[in-house]
């Protein structure tokens, strides 16, 4: 093993982790505030990718414009789901919520196939971020460096939003004492819709950003990521953004180093980690004690 390998495995792990973080952040936010474990979050990721792709095609191939517009379309989908479906199951038990969001997974997987076709679609390159840079004699894509920067920025932004702003304070209040927040004047249903749509947006942006990284769009691309995002959200502590960020880093680096240095590495290790964390600290790294 040499230094260049170590650095590159590290970089690979960081970029993987930041991707999972982008998806897990929305999942965690929605769980933390609304208390809903949203299976369909992977679908938002997939829809984000496809919508950004279409927006890009319609608007002359500008990646950034696609990134801007695509996820907004997905937000409309998120709005409809929250407003007309999820809202009616908040009071119900966990299985009903899971089943409802699971139904949307099936629905969107199939809709994507109908709208965009069953085959995979190659991704466009990103102007300005398409090359690779030489780091210690080995090449690393600029785009991945960009993601490694974007991830922490998103984390910082979310932290500032929750901890430092007026809306953050309302969100913190409403996430713990829903009724009392309503009784002091918070429009809780509207707030929840807003948070859900925002979480949807985060997932969709994750998807839009993932396309140049994975290199193609496929129907069903959300299913692999949702399990990883679940794992990250769980080991970080369900509902804790700080924990999800750390969890994503751990999972990213674990899979990167595991793949490189433990030939038998598999998701087996990931799930052992998840089980161990649950047994040792069910509240995860940063979750509140249960």
């Amino acid at each position, binding site marked *: 093993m040499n230094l260049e390998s170590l650095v590159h495995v590290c970089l690979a792990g960081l970029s993987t982790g930041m991707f999972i973080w982008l998806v897990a952040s929305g999942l965690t936010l929605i769980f933390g505030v609304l208390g809903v474990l949203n299976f369909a979050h992977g679908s938002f990721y997939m829809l984000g990718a496809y919508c950004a792709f279409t927006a890009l095609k319609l608007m002359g191939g500008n990646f950034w414009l696609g990134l801007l517009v695509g996820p907004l379309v997905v937000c409309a989908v998120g709005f409809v789901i929250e407003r007309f479906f999820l809202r009616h199951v908040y009071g119900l038990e966990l299985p009903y919520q899971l089943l409802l969001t699971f139904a949307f997974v099936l629905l969107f997987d199939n809709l994507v196939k109908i709208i965009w076709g069953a085959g995979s679609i190659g991704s466009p390159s990103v102007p300005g971020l398409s090359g690779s840079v030489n780091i210690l004699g080995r090449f690393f894509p600029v785009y991945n460096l960009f993601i490694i920067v974007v991830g922490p920025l998103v984390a910082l932004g979310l932290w500032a939003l929750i901890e430092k702003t007026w809306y953050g304070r309302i969100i*913190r209040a409403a996430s713990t004492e829903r009724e009392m927040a*309503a*009784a*002091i*004047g*918070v429009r809780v249903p509207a707030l929840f819709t807003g948070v859900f749509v925002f979480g949807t947006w985060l997932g969709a942006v994750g998807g839009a950003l993932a396309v140049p990284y994975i290199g193609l769009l496929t129907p069903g691309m959300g299913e692999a990521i949702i399990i990883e995002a679940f794992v990250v959200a769980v080991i970080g502590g369900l509902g804790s953004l700080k924990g999800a960020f750390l969890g994503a880093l751990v999972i990213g680096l674990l899979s990167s180093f595991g793949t490189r240095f433990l030939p038998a590495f598999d998701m087996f290790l990931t799930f052992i980690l998840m089980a161990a964390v649950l047994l040792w600290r069910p509240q995860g790294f940063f979750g509140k004690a249960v």
Partner: protein
Amino acid sequence: MMLQVEGINTYYRKSHILQDVSFSVEAGEVVALLGRNGVGKTTSLRSVMGLTAPRNGSIRFQDREVAGQAPYVMAKAGMAYMPDDLKIFPDLTCEENLEIARRLSGRDGYWNQGRVEELFPVLGDRRKQLGILLSGGEKKMLGMGRALMANPDMILLDEPSEGLAPLVVDHLAAVIEAIRDKGITLLLADQNLKFCRRVCGRGYILEKGRVVHADTIAAIWDDEAVIKQYLAL
């Protein structure tokens, strides 16, 4: 008339909790809803606040029909509510708990951080403490303070005296008088008739979801038959 409730019926899931409940509160009055646990006192307050909408009947607040309005509408219209379990926001500091109520209500007036801390000095000491770390007594004061911060026209208090040592109940009575003197109307649900006698003018007795008796508190206090039959004393 500050609040007029007429013939409301409220359900929780399939149970018919409130059956044709009517009561009214004049501006500046302190009125008590009396009765044992589970007779519908809390649900009455929740119905007024909009947390559990009545299926029918009328609720008029400052001469506006408000039955079925969302709680946030009630809050902005000048109604404040302190639940029996207080529901202090655990992730917010004492100060933030107060401030958020003031800002959300959008109402200015006599009550502000300083005046509330004057009334409950302990809240000043705990200003930066997270809600989750407060003791039971501190939470109760914060709950009252938070209701005041909205500068409401009327406050609904659920079980204000519950769990307080007899000594502290004395203090609470004084606080409620002070609040009333600042022009706020109060409706409280309580089981402690002794306490109610000190602060309330009138009272309604509930039993099995119905109002079974209404009179001045003084009259109720003297009516042993009513107390024996309906009140847990």
